[in-house]
Structures are given as structure tokens and as C-alpha cells.
């Protein structure tokens, strides 16, 4: 019943049609899974449940892959040998990779529920958070609340003017004209003359210069909207649409205690199945099975081999393209076509939660035109009198490449410098930080597969098709790149097809 309900309810959303049903006896068939990220562990979990013998080879000494949180006491060594010791206080963390679980990512939420991973709300849009441009308003950040209210207000006013001046007669009937005017008044907080201007109406959206009070100090003072031209030229309006993106709409969740809790929970479930610290150096298939050769990731030494009838390979294409593997030309071409995007995250610990205490910012995101791109405020432990960790940088594109080229200490220092232009408290309150640039991450060599429409047309089907006894899975084999949901859906789709192949063979 649950299956039927979920299958119907989720149709057309994330592609998750309820818990996977792999019926039919695999007759003791074995599957070798390469990679203990979410895709690999999901495959192992479900295939084992369906009666397969499963084993996983994992490069890291922990489960999760990009599902990962860094805590105080952790040590992280990136490519090139640069080592960072995380000095966060107990309970504070950075999610270097994914940090959000949208409400419609049904597969990710399903496994959280199944594995008893406790979730809490993640705040994406916070009207009290800031929008900042070094080139606008003298470099002074504006509350998102004001930017949104003023932008909507002016757009409503302009549309109302056009409507009144008869400019929309072709597009709008007389009856609809009245409705549109009423809608603009309501949506944009316009006054009786359809103007967006300083007053009670606009202040009820953008906030007051001084808030209403009690007793004899109760008269509120309206605030002054930004001039329309200034707002348009500032570019700050580009933040207005961010929260409207499907993945960024409410409600969004995060695991309590860090995103890495999902990987840990899967890892516990698969205790004894995962060989950690295994660097795969060769993948061979023949008509009887698949053999992966691996060495100890830290110490090298003599090559060892793992063998199974079938293989689910979740190694990122950026790494897999360098490992000898005897798959057919089309799959190999697809693997070789994918480089991975640049991304960086920097976590900064502060002595106190000044964003809450001084600025009433509880969770959410501030945006900036500086290379750090944004500041993310923790969606947890509100009102704690202890320390706090901010996401001090989260960039893609050129800025992320440039961050990767810096030493870890410079990544942190730069992020503090940029952040201080938004929150001057940074200078006094900063304590320590950690910066993860994804091109330096040893097991992914980048953040996520860089797909374009051309690449998809040429290679996507070949990447996902079963090649002999090998099938690939991971966010790179999905249409939700960089999302954990993509990794899980890819894995479920791959094992469904593999299972059919096994039953047919």
C-alpha cells in the first residue's frame, strides 16, 4: 500500500517511485561495488537485501564520499599534501560538499528515514540576511527584506502605470485590468495612487526605521525605500530570484549534526562489507566476472584483487578516466568526456554568534559579488551563547579555481577579509577556519561532473548503459548533477537494470 501510494504521489517529481523492489532470486550472484559514497552504499544495501553477495572497495578510510562533514579534531589532507587540522569547537562542523535536502528529493529523504538519520529544517531564504555588492551603496550591504520589497514594489508600480496608461490594452481585457491593478497594489505594497513610496505600506514589507513599540514609545517610523535607479544599477535584485528555484524552495532539510550523518548511517548498516583505504588501479571484466585490482591508498604495497560476477562502479569520472578499464568504446568515451567543476567551501569559527546577537540573522544566506560568493549562517543551535561556524565562502567558476590555487591558510584568510566587508565583527571575532577546494580533494578531483547539453546528447546514454558486467552510478550518471538525490536515483536505476540482466542471464 505504501509503495502504491508513494509511487503515485511522487510520479513526475524526482523519479523516486518508492522503495525499490528487486524481486526474483539472483541465485547467489555477487556484485563488486567501487566507491562507498551514497550511490555505492545504496547499491550495496539494496542488492544485499535482494540476495546478492556484495563487497565495496573505498579509497577513503570512512564511508560517505562527498557526503562529508568536518568536525573539530579532524585532519584533512588534500592533493599536494597540504594538511589542515580542524579546530572547531565540539558540535560545530563544516559540510564541504552537499548541505541541503530539498523536500522533493524523495530518495534522499527516504534513506534518511530508513536509516534513522534525524533531520531538521535548513533555512535558505532569510529576509534579514544581506545582499552585498562592492560596487553599490558604498559597499554597504542591504537586508534582503529591503531589496525584495523595493524591487517588487517598483515592478508593481511600473506595471500599474502601464496598465493605467492603457499600454496593456492589447494584452489585458478591461476586466482583467482592474484585477491586475488590485493585484499590483497588494503584491507590491502600493498606495492608493499605485505608488511604491515611503510609508506604512512599504515599511510593512521592507521593515521600519524604528519598529512599532508599546506604551508611550509606540509610534513607528517608516523607512525610506532605495531609489529605483540605485536599486536597478546595484544588481542586488539578482538575489530576489534565488529562493524561487525549485531546489531552494521551502522546506529544505539538513541532517542534525552534519550532512555526513547519512554516510555514517549507511556505513554502520554495511559494517564488514566495506574495504576502506583501497585505491583501485585496474578494472577487468571477462565473460565470467569482474576483477578490480587495488592497493593500500596510504602505503601502496602489493596489489590485491577483488572479484565478483558483476560490478557497480561509482568512482567519479575524473578519477575513473585514469584507471585502466576494459569497457567498450562508447562508455570509455563518455567517461573521458567529463571533467569536474571547481567549487570551494570555507568554514570559519567565530568566538560568538554575532550574526544572531547583533543582526538578528538566524540561518539563511547572504550574497556578495566578492569571490567568496556567499555567507551561510548555521540553521541550528540558535541563541547558543557558544561559538559558531559560518560558511564563509561557497563559490563556483573562476573564483573557485582561484581559491583552489591558494594554500588552505590563504583560503581562510581571504574569506575573512571578504566577510569583514559585510560583517565588520569578523575582525574581532574570527578564531579559525578550514577551506576545502574540490579540485584538491583526492578522491574526486573536482566537485561534480561538468555536463553540457552537447555532452549529454553525445555521451549520457553510453555512460549509463550496462557494459558487459559493469554499470556506472553516481551523480555523474544522473540528470541531477551535484545533488545527492542524483547519486541515489542513478544507483537505484543502475541496480534495477543490473538485476534484470542477472535474472535474464
Amino acid at each position, binding site marked *: 500500500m505504501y509503495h502504491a501510494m508513494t509511487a503515485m504521489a511522487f510520479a513526475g517529481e524526482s523519479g523516486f517511485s518508492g522503495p525499490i523492489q528487486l524481486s526474483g532470486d539472483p541465485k547467489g550472484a555477487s556484485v563488486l561495488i567501487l566507491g562507498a559514497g551514497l550511490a555505492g552504499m545504496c547499491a550495496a544495501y539494496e542488492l544485499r537485501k535482494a540476495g546478492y553477495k556484495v563487497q565495496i572497495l573505498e*579509497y577513503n578510510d570512512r564511508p560517505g564520499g562527498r557526503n562529508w562533514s568536518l568536525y573539530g579534531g579532524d585532519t584533512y589532507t588534500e*592533493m*599536494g*599534501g597540504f594538511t589542515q587540522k580542524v579546530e572547531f569547537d565540539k558540535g560545530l562542523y563544516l559540510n564541504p560538499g552537499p548541505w541541503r535536502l530539498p523536500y522533493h528529493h524523495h530518495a534522499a529523504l527516504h534513506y534518511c528515514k530508513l536509516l534513522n538519520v534525524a533531520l531538521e529544517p535548513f533555512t535558505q531564504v532569510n529576509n534579514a540576511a544581506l*545582499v552585498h*555588492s*562592492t560596487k553599490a551603496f558604498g559597499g554597504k550591504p542591504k537586508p534582503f527584506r529591503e531589496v525584495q520589497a523595493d524591487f517588487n514594489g517598483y515592478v508593481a508600480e511600473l506595471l500599474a502605470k502601464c496598465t493605467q496608461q492603457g499600454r496593456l490594452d492589447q494584452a489585458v481585457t478591461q476586466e482583467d485590468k482592474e484585477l491586475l491593478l488590485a493585484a499590483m497594489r497588494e503584491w507590491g505594497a502600493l498606495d492608493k495612487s499605485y505608488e511604491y513610496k515611503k510609508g506604512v505600506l512599504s515599511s510593512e514589507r521592507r521593515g521600519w526605521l524604528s519598529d512599532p513599540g508599546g506604551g508611550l514609545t509606540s509610534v513607528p517610523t517608516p523607512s525610506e525605500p532605495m531609489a529605483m535607479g540605485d536599486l536597478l544599477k546595484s*544588481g542586488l535584485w*539578482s*538575489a530576489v530570484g*534565488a529562493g524561487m*528555484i525549485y*531546489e531552494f524552495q521551502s522546506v529544505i532539510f539538513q541532517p542534525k549534526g552534519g550532512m555526513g550523518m547519512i554516510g555514517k548511517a549507511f556505513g554502520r548498516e554495511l559494517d564488514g562489507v566495506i574495504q576502506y583505504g583501497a*585505491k*583501485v588501479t585496474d578494472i577487468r571484466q571477462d565473460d565470467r566476472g569482474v576483477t578490480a585490482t587495488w592497493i593500500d*591508498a596510504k602505503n601502496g604495497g602489493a596489489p590485491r584483487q577483488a572479484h565478483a560476477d558483476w560490478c557497480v562502479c561509482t*568512482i567519479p569520472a*575524473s*578519477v575513473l*578516466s*585514469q*584507471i585502466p578499464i576494459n569497457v567498450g568504446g562508447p562508455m570509455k568515451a563518455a567517461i*573521458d568526456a567529463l*571533467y*569536474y*567543476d*571547481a567549487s570551494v567551501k570555507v568554514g570559519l569559527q567565530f568566538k560568538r554568534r554575532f550574526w544572531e546577537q547583533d543582526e538578528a540573522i538566524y540561518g539563511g544566506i547572504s*550574497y*556578495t*559579488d566578492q*569571490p567568496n*560568493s*556567499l555567507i551561510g549562517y548555521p540553521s541550528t543551535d540558535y541563541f547558543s551563547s557558544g561559538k559558531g561556524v559560518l560558511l564563509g565562502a*561557497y*563559490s*563556483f*567558476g*573562476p*573564483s573557485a*579555481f*582561484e581559491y583552489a*590555487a591558494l594554500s588552505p591558510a590563504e583560503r581562510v584568510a*581571504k574569506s575573512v577579509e571578504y566577510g569583514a566587508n559585510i560583517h565588520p565583527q569578523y575582525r574581532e571575532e574570527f578564531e579559525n577556519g578550514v577551506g576545502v*577546494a574540490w*579540485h*584538491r*580533494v583526492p*578522491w574526486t*578531483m*573536482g*566537485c561534480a561532473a*561538468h*555536463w*553540457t*547539453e*552537447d555532452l549529454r546528447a553525445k555521451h549520457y546514454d553510453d555512460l549509463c548503459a550496462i557494459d558487459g558486467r559493469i554499470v556506472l552510478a553516481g551523480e555523474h550518471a544522473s*540528470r*541531477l548533477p*551535484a*545533488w545527492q538525490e542524483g547519486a541515489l536515483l542513478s544507483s537505484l536505476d543502475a541496480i534495477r537494470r543490473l538485476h534484470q540482466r542477472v535474472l535474464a542471464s
Partner: protein
Amino acid sequence: MKAQHHLSAAIALVLAATLAGSTATAQDYPVGHFDEQTGQAIWEGICQGCHMPNAEGAVGAGAYPKLAGDPRLAANVYPVMMVLNGQRAMPAFGANLSDAQVAEVVNYLRTHFGNKYKDPVTPEQVKALRGGS
């Protein structure tokens, strides 16, 4: 590291990179340009992220090749093509660097880190190589 793209691009990049795929095309990615102009600045601003400050490369689950004393750099077309089009884990930078920037960084690499090649590439040569793969 200078802020050089507009705020809208900064936000769009965040969105595009997390959301791209279902509908995004190559052109949908806001193309960010790098500010660095000299060969050394480009090397230090971009390339050393993966190939490391001393061009010695690095090893993890996969590897970034060593470019110090690299005989493959003897043919000057080779590094130009790599920078423009990428190869496997190496990203394509053709859309993010001008012809002059590509020539600058290739010439810097081919005359540093034990590489001593005496035939610099010109922006015109880079331009001619664009579009090939």
C-alpha cells in the same frame, strides 16, 4: 583574486552549478573570465591549484600530471590544446581565457619549472587553434 563578475553572475553560478544538467546548455553557464593577465599570474591563479606551485603534479585516487621538465611540452600546440579543450579530468578553459592569456600561460609554463623551450606561441596561433578538439 579579484571580484570580477557581477553579483548576478555570482549567484547564477551557484545556481547553475548545483542545478545545471536538466536544462542547462554550455551557454547557460555564465562564462566567467579570469582577471589574471601575465603568464605567472595565470599559473599562480589557476594552474597551480591542480598541478601544484612547483608544477610537480599530485597524486590521490587519480593524479594531476607533473609539468616540470615535461617533454610533452616540446610541441607548443599540445599545451595550447589542453588549456583550450581540456582532456579527461583537465577542464576546458577556452571560454574563460583570451587568446593572449592562453599564450601567456603556455609560454610561462614552457620556460619555467625546468622547461626551456624557445619557441613561444602567439595569441594568433591560439586563435587559429580554437574550435579544434
